[in-house]
């Protein structure tokens, strides 16, 4: 087998990156503002319809759907991408990675550390990227099998149901803030007291908003709104969890060791990103609702390129992969999801190390 040509791979991807970033402008600014408007309308419409349950229960159901869409759009297409700095070039006071705080239980600053920094820099490097299995699931042979892995499919379902709280608690779990043995060698970038304070403060405000304030506004329809909000949050959690698992834990996604990334070149970094993610095929609506994480490969190669450009560059990226005989991991939603389920189940059992 011939040696992989990292230099050329790097050059070709850089070419896609720079030629696309050159084009970024009004069209992309319009895109993010349009999505924000759609999000606001869905959110307001949803909240109002949830209080119309007595007129007709169908209105309540539509309200739940609208509110779920609003939450998904905010978390995935707006917040995730804005917090990546994809729209910082706009110089908008409210649409930038420095000030944006998202509408989810997880504190934005914590997310920026764990996700934007750790996960995107050390993607799938075992021991560095705490997103690989979230410390809960065994998804490769890099991890020793434990008895609890037997029922890890159930753990996975629970994680999906409570996904926003999982993300929120993620950094605190890794830092052993509440439970577990403190790791001596870890440098505490943020004091535990601050992690705790921000975790509780953000989480409490999210709970108060959906389960106290809006139900109180609804007056006699208190319960309708509580249940509606609960379902909308559940739908959002399941959807975001599923999309993210499809982007990272399908069967062919590779893992890497810490030694392998010492002195890594940009080309090798691209290579690792390429093998560490998978895409979902679908239409414009699917891409929007996944926050364009259906282009997880493109997102991982160019995390701060506006998401509005991923669809356009995907064919070019795929062509480069093909040229270098690299597997471009993509498939329908169903196929990718089955692949995830298979991987979770496969590593539930102890396996002999086979590649």
């Amino acid at each position: 087998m011939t040696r992989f040509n990292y230099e050329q791979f790097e050059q070709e991807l850089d070419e896609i990156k720079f030629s696309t970033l050159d084009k970024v402008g009004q069209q992309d600014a319009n895109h993010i503002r349009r999505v924000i408007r759609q999000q606001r309308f869905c959110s307001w419409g949803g909240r109002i319809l949830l209080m119309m349950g007595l007129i007709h229960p169908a209105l309540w159901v539509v309200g739940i759907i609208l509110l779920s869409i609003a939450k998904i759009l905010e978390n995935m297409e707006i917040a995730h991408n804005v917090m990546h700095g994809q729209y910082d070039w706009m110089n908008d006071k409210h649409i930038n990675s420095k000030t944006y705080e998202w509408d989810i239980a997880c504190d934005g600053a914590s997310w920026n550390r764990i996700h934007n920094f750790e996960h995107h820099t050390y993607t799938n490097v075992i021991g560095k990227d705490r997103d690989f299995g979230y410390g809960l699931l065994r998804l490769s042979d890099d991890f020793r099998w434990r008895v609890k892995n037997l029922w890890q499919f159930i753990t996975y379902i629970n994680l999906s149901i409570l996904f926003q709280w999982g993300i929120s608690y993620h950094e605190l779990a890794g830092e052993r803030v509440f439970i577990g043995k403190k790791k001596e060698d870890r440098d505490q970038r943020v004091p535990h007291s601050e992690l705790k304070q921000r975790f509780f403060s953000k989480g409490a405000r999210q709970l108060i908003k959906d389960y106290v304030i809006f139900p109180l506004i609804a007056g006699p329809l208190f319960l309708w709104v509580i249940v509606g909000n609960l379902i909308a949050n559940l739908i959002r959690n399941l959807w975001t969890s599923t999309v993210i698992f499809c982007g990272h834990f399908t069967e062919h996604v590779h893992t890497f060791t810490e030694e392998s990334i010492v002195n890594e070149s940009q080309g090798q970094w691209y290579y690792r990103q390429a093998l560490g993610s998978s895409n979902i095929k679908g239409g414009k609506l699917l891409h929007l609702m996944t926050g364009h994480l259906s282009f997880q490969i493109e997102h991982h190669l160019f995390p701060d390129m506006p998401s509005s450009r991923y669809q356009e560059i995907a064919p070019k990226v795929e062509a480069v992969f093909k040229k270098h005989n690299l597997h471009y991991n993509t498939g329908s939603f169903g196929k990718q999801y089955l692949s995830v389920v298979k991987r979770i189940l496969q590593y539930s059992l102890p396996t002999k190390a086979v590649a």
Partner: protein
Amino acid sequence: MFKEVTNKLVSWFLHHQSFSGYLEPVMQQFIPAWRSGSFRAQVNQVKPVDHDYVYLTLAPESSWAINNISHQAGQHIELTLEINGRLLTRIFTIASSPALFKKTKEITLLIKTNKLGRFTGAITQFIQVGSWCNISKPQGDFLFESITQQVVMVAGGSGITPIISMLAEHVEKLTQPTYLRYIAETGHHQFIELLENLANKNELFTFELVTRAQHEKIPLIFDGNSSQDVYCCGPSGLMQSIKEQALVGQGNYFQEQFSIGAIVNENQSSFNVIFDGENVDITNGTTLLEQFEQKELNVTRGCGIGVCHQCVCNKKSGLVKNLRTGEVSDNGEQLIQLCISQPLSDLEITS
């Protein structure tokens, strides 16, 4: 009080600094360029003239001028344009007079464009008559206070803008000789017709259009007995030399400081800055903003001259010197503008 409470609630539950920030993209659909903390203005005229100058005439929304009082002659505004999706802000002096605003409800800016400039280079391309942009309240204290004094004014290049505004506003009230020397390349002088009109209105006002070579050949002479007030706006080198000459006399000296000159410090010293928990070594040789940018720290660059406050950070402790005012801070916590702050000690700063 009400506003504070809403903003607090909005930041708790809607995660935006203000309710208007949360609404912005929706409002902009109906009201173009609706932006929290900024005024709207409609572009009434974009007139490019020779030598890369553009006259931009704007009609600000009515709340910009309270009781019909727009600005004071000599003041400037921040102009924000959306250029290909980017909101870019620059500072321009209002070249038209407040008196003219009362009649026309318009202000005019004179903009020297630079083909390579991200902002000025794109003005004629992206700004259409009828479109909307954002402006700030007028700011600045380069004002005319010498109606009963002999006055010498020196303008270099586009430094004519505050001075033309002052003259247009005050020329009829002048009671003492007022002389303007306007330095620019041959043929690059602006507002010639207006200057002639002003000279006709009051014979105490005279002006000369000169080139730099001519200016250097015939220096303005201020001696220890003269009590002329001196006004100067132009490149920093010009202002420095006029200032030195003017201070010999007994009159007052006024200038508009737009560019921050490089800090020359014989005693270079270096300090340690903790910026968002990260340790950085810096010197007192340039501004904090420049050094933070070189170190690729997460800072925001706005106007770069201490006006727009986009680069504001919170100084927890340490001393800095404000380069616009020359003021040295105390050791306590305060907001500072990185672009005009010179470090004088070890610092702790959060973004």
